[in-house]
């Protein structure tokens, strides 16, 4: 490989890039991603706000449709059910606590009068299992599931308050006891580094990794599809013969891949810009005090990533993302070169699809394992360092701090070396395959060509 092998690279790159961004499929792809990037957070915020205001409205205005609550308290806790009547929602609900009819009769009554708005509540206490509260209602009653959800939530809170009241806990102590308990598991390494347990991830990290994996998956698929189609088109339309009089296969291959990488970078920044704008919109929407906790949390979660992110992490993650994209694009180019007709391309994708699905599943397995069972250092290092799996996950692992910057750099070096080796091997077979016009080349054929070329 020498400099003259890349003569024409610039022209190929410009042509591929310009034709790529002019394609309707690309325009639709970037538009859909931008719309998603822009709308996701505001929609979630608006939904959160609506839910929040709806909840507020229900509590002040709407009365519960429950008519009578038959209470059978076998827990031994002294509960003042009449206190529930003090809230607006349950002011007209009758609480029957005197066991004037037996529990079985009350249940029987619900069966016989299946449209009644009565419910039966039974509480029990077991020293091993704790409190057990059962609520029974008639299937055809006018009580909606939302009303029951509200009742369940309110009853649980009321019951807890009564329990604490029984124990003589003051209101101030109660507030103190109600505070959130945030637990962090930290590790101390041999070299004195103190940090979070790298094996575990929070639900937020889980969604970020999953999201990152999906984003890379989409970009990889787009790049591979474009490169493979472009190569197959040049072969099937015989343009390749003309192109090869002005440039070398190596320049064609690298020009196409570079164009796809630039497309991906532009798409990524366009989508991120939309997402950033959406955050500004969200801040505007949440400027009042009506925002719900869940809605504002979405913004906080995204913003919190930046606390652990450094410029070096972003740089390594970006380079790694591009390296992964390049490796898969090279596979796409070889796939495209293995066919003589465009309609054979779908069949030729088999090998690529197999590799892709396998690597994505391995990454998914790791992410799910990290969430539920804690990570395994061996699997995590494999996924992060092996370029085909790392392409989907390493940037997310790095940005969420699950792997150190040193590991990230090692992964990047491995990625660059692998991409270079794959490129050299691919370029060797690519040149021979470009002029091949016959039945589709299978993997064993490509390996045979590769052996021949490499030995030569």
């Amino acid at each position, binding site marked *: 490989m020498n400099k003259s092998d890349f003569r024409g690279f610039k022209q190929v790159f410009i042509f591929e890039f310009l034709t790529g961004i002019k394609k309707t499929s690309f325009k639709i792809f970037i538009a859909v991603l931008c719309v998603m990037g822009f709308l996701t957070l505001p929609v979630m915020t608006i939904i959160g706000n609506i839910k929040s205001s709806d909840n507020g409205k229900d509590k002040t205005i709407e009365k519960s449709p429950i008519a009578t609550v038959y209470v059978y308290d076998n827990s031994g806790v002294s509960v003042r059910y009449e206190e529930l009547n003090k809230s607006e929602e349950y002011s007209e609900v009758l609480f029957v606590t005197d066991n004037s009819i037996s529990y079985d009769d009350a249940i029987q009554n619900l069966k016989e009068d299946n449209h009644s708005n009565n419910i039966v509540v039974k509480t029990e206490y077991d020293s091993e299992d704790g409190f057990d509260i059962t609520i029974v209602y008639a299937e055809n009653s006018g009580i909606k599931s939302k009303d029951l959800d509200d009742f369940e939530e309110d009853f649980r809170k009321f019951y807890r308050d009564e329990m604490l009241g029984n124990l003589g806990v003051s209101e101030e102590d109660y507030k103190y006891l109600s505070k959130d308990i945030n637990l962090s598991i930290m590790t101390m390494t041999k070299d004195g580094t103190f940090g979070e347990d790298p094996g575990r991830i929070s639900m937020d990290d889980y969604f970020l990794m999953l999201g990152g994996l999906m984003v890379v998956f989409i970009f990889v698929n787009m790049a591979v599809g474009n490169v493979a189609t472009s190569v197959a088109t040049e072969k099937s339309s015989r343009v390749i013969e*003309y192109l090869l009089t002005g440039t070398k296969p190596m320049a064609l291959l690298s020009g196409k891949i570079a164009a796809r990488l630039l497309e991906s970078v532009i798409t990524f920044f366009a989508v991120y810009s939309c997402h950033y704008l959406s955050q500004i919109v969200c801040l505007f929407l949440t400027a009042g005090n009506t925002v719900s906790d869940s809605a504002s949390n979405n913004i906080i979660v995204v913003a919190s990533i930046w606390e652990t992110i450094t410029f070096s992490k972003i740089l390594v993650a970006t380079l790694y993302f591009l390296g992964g994209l390049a490796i898969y694009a090279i596979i796409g180019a070889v796939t495209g070169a293995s066919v003589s007709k465009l309609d054979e391309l779908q069949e030729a994708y088999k090998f690529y699809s197999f590799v892709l699905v396998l690597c994505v599943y391995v990454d998914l397995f790791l992410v799910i394992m990290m969430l539920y069972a804690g990570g395994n250092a061996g699997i995590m290092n494999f996924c992060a360092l092996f370029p085909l799996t790392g392409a989907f996950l390493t940037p997310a692992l790095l940005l969420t701090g699950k792997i150190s910057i040193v590991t990230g750099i090692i992964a990047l070096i491995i990625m660059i070396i692998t991409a270079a080796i794959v490129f050299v091997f691919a370029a060797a077979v690519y040149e021979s395959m470009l002029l091949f016009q016959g039945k589709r080349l299978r993997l064993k054929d490509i390996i045979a060509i590769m052996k021949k070329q490499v030995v030569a």
Partner: protein
Amino acid sequence: MAFEVRHLQKKFGEKQAVEDLSFKLDNPGVYALLGTNGAGKSTSIRMMLGILSRDNGEVLLNGENFDTRKVNVGYLAEERGLYPKYPIMDQLLYFASLKGLTADVAMERIKYWGERLNVTEYFFPERKPGKKFKPTLADQMSKGNQQKIQLMAALISDPEFLILDEPLSGLDPVNTDLFKSVIREEIDKNKYIIMSSHQMPVIEEFCEDITILNRGKAVVQGNLNEIKKSYGRVNLFVKCDEDISDTISTLGISVVNDTPAGIQLRVKDESEAKNLLKQLSDANKTIVRFELREPSLHEIFIESVGEAADDDGQNTGINKVEDVVSE
């Protein structure tokens, strides 16, 4: 400038696609490569252009390795190719950029060739007010017009060296004449041209030097006039009002063809023809036509290659995996 091909060889698997092909162009003009389908013409051209690796041999320009990325070469491939779904303007600008042309120069050349080949309307269509401009895509054009675009691609860089692989195949008579006039112009500009064709009259019209390939091997090679001379004036065409078959059989002259228009004979030499003329004259036969001439290129081709060699399907390119692996 001298272009030279020395001992070019190529094997696809066990098949010898090209065997020891050598020729030289010392002066501007057209060199013809002839042969049946699969004789190795396109494979030879691909090797000359460096598209296909060669097993042996050299391709030299002024004694140095011929590199199409350094020399301004125009190439019209046998297998015509354009991106079907891309605008033709974009494609030509791309091809021009690969040849090192700036966009301005390329645009000027597109205008010139568009007018010369009557395809301007596809590059610069009339813009109707209120209607969105839609560039012409390659697959929206007829086959003949696509062929014109490909000729434009070959000529856009004003190449000093032109390789035309079957340039006139598939063209209607009007476009054939148009293409011929363009080729003639290029010859007048003192270009070096290598042309392959099945159409013998075209070769006779344009070419001075030829190579006839059969199964990858050069079977006839040299200056066309000298080749014809070497065959001698042995083709005799005779037409008389009377029946002259007895005279012909008496002299033992072989009949190639006997038609109402006349009898085509193959004589051993000019003296045999003179003898026949004397016999006919002495017998008071009315001689309408008596023409002794050199063999046509078609006749030389058929004789050297043989009809049976046609369409035997050999060496049509890389279409088996073994062909690639055995390279």
